[in-house]
């Protein structure tokens, strides 16, 4: 009788990703995603159209402020394509980070009553956000095609790196989830992090390439070497590569080394995040 199915003890265990259990609950993952999708737009008139409105407005505003006034975007490519590619990806990143960082706090009631692998919840957030991203990418593709097919392609030079776009999205998902898991694990004890993350994400956007073309900025005399600096934000290489895929050289930098840095960052953060999260989930109910 030594082989027990379930063992509950005080030992928190070492590094344990607990992925096998997560796989058992894949139906729950699916249902949570469905719940998110259905519940967000119930009793709204425009429904999922809201997915479009947000990036459109942001693109317009960014175009005016950062494109026309600050002149941070290349003038020889269509600016809606330039800004929207960054905005859509960044929005996904910030959605995921913000929501996963609240996992324990918003779900404490359910977590306090029933056991299931808690990792399901952040995963469902990532997937739900992915659906939203998918819809927004459609919008982006429409905008892109309008510029590309009509009016002589407008200097857009899509290239083979487009096939890497799914990987860029996965990397954004991984980084935001990893960071979110770490933050949510510590917010069970210290609520300070909640406030930090709220404006932290916003600040981080300005310390990324969402609002500018890094190549253009570097050419300004006061900003030499700015590229290395802004690329420390692991989202910057991803956004740059995304723009490169659709716009070409003028849109963004495609630099494998930078991307490898983002990938490494993602792996480290994700592993630490899951480990810390799994450790916290066991008795966070007592401290939350």
């Amino acid at each position, binding site marked *: 009788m030594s082989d*027990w199915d379930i063992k509950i003890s005080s030992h*928190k265990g070492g590094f344990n990703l607990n992925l096998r259990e997560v796989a058992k609950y894949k139906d729950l993952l699916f249902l949570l995603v469905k719940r998110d999708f259905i519940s967000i737009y119930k009793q709204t008139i425009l429904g999922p159209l809201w997915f479009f409105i947000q990036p459109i407005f942001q693109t317009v505003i960014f175009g005016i402020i950062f494109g026309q006034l600050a002149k941070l975007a290349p003038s020889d490519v269509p600016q809606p394509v330039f800004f929207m590619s960054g905005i859509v990806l960044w929005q996904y990143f910030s959605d995921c980070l913000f929501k996963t960082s609240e996992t324990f706090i918003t779900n404490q009631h359910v977590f306090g009553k029933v056991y299931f692998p808690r990792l399901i919840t952040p995963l469902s957030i990532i997937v739900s956000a992915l659906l939203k991203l998918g819809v927004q990418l459609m919008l982006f593709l429409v905008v892109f095609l309008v510029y590309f097919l009509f009016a002589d392609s407008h200097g857009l030079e899509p290239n083979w790196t487009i096939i890497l776009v799914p990987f860029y999205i996965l990397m954004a998902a991984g980084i935001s989830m990893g960071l979110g898991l770490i933050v949510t694990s510590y917010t069970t004890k210290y609520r300070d992090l909640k406030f930090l993350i709220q404006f932290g994400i916003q600040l981080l956007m300005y310390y990324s390439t969402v609002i500018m073309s890094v190549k253009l900025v570097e050419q300004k005399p006061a900003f030499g070497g700015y590229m290395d600096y802004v690329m420390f934000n692991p989202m910057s290489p991803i956004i740059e590569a995304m723009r490169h895929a659709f716009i070409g050289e003028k849109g963004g930098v495609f630099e494998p080394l930078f991307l490898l840095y983002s990938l490494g960052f993602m792996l480290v953060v994700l592993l630490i995040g899951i480990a810390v999260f799994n450790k916290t989930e066991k008795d966070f109910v007592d401290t939350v």
Partner: protein
Amino acid sequence: MTKIALKISKVSKLYRLGEIGTGTLGGDLKRWWSKVRGKEDPFAKVGEENDRTNDSNAQFVYALKDIDFEVPEGQVVGIIGRNGAGKSTLLKLLSRVTTPSDGEILANGRIASLLEVGTGFHPELTGRENLYLNGAILGMSKAEINSKLDEIVEFSGCKKYLDTPVKRYSSGMKVRLGFAVAAHLDPELLIVDEVLAVGDAEFQKKCIGKMQDVAGTGRTVLFVSHNMSSIRNLCERVIVLDMGKMIFDGDVEEGINHYLSLNSSEGGVSFKKNYSLNNKRFVSEISINENQGGVIEYLNNDIEIQVGLKINEELTGAYLGIIVEDGQGNFLIVSSSDEMENDPVARLSKGNHQLKISFSKRILKPGKYYLSFSLRNNSGEIYHRTQRELCFYVEDNLSYRGMKNRYRTVALTGVDVQYAIVE
């Protein structure tokens, strides 16, 4: 030998009292500094037992201490104890919501815990959508829910409302739907907290029936309740927890008696009380004492209440009144001593007196009652008055397994009717 379904060995759970952190920055720093030097936490006072009525300075408290038992497969075990005895903590540990501070719990098969029904219901989703979601949260796969869908819907009795958002449901309907899902979980080990307390009588009956079914198919059930009749109905073994410790493990009736005897000393419902009085001219002390503690067994003696009085000056024209109310506030007995021909209270000489008040408890059905009493003078002066301060239980010690006894609890009174063949 039957297989062991659940083994709990030396499980303890420590909780920190008060705020996390010492409350001051200085205290937190001191604690941190001693931790850095590898010293003991200067603020920790570990090891007090969990008695919530005692005010103590301890920072930690054992919600559970050295719980140790095994449950063979197919047994239905009732867990009873007063509020704060550690029942919920034990259930939380078993349902893996939190981890023990010490010890180990081993189990075979799927554990399903119903600490609450309808966990994770989303108000915007329809009944059907929530049914799937709730089932998945409890650990069912989608295929499993699909195959049981009809049964679940049938059991819940919410068929008509299945495609209506749950936010439009009545609270009873939510509970029905939630329990219906949970009842069809078919786990090897089912843990039930007092979810049956909600829902109407018909649904409660359904739930008890379902749990009996589950128990009948060889599943192991742990059942926490304050309702002794459902414990009697369902369980074959009872574990009594008190102040975080296991104080009884074994036969159901014995366990229930053990538990009920605990109530007599529970703060707030104690029957031993000394009152300080405002006007000490005549009466300087009143104490009240009930022999059997707060629990009165149904078929034993009459209810007796003893009142001690210390009289400073001879007192004439006083009378004693009592009111017995049930839990809903209905007055069942209203009486005063001057109704008697020779009121023993009418003339009280100087000194100590013990008065005995008694009435037949046969008129009270099982349940909880409140007693108020007052000592007054017919000139209108009130020496002392209590209102619903004293509480006692009348417990039916008959076995509940007959139809008769179920009716007994719903009857208005407990008067025994005599039957005899006269011809």
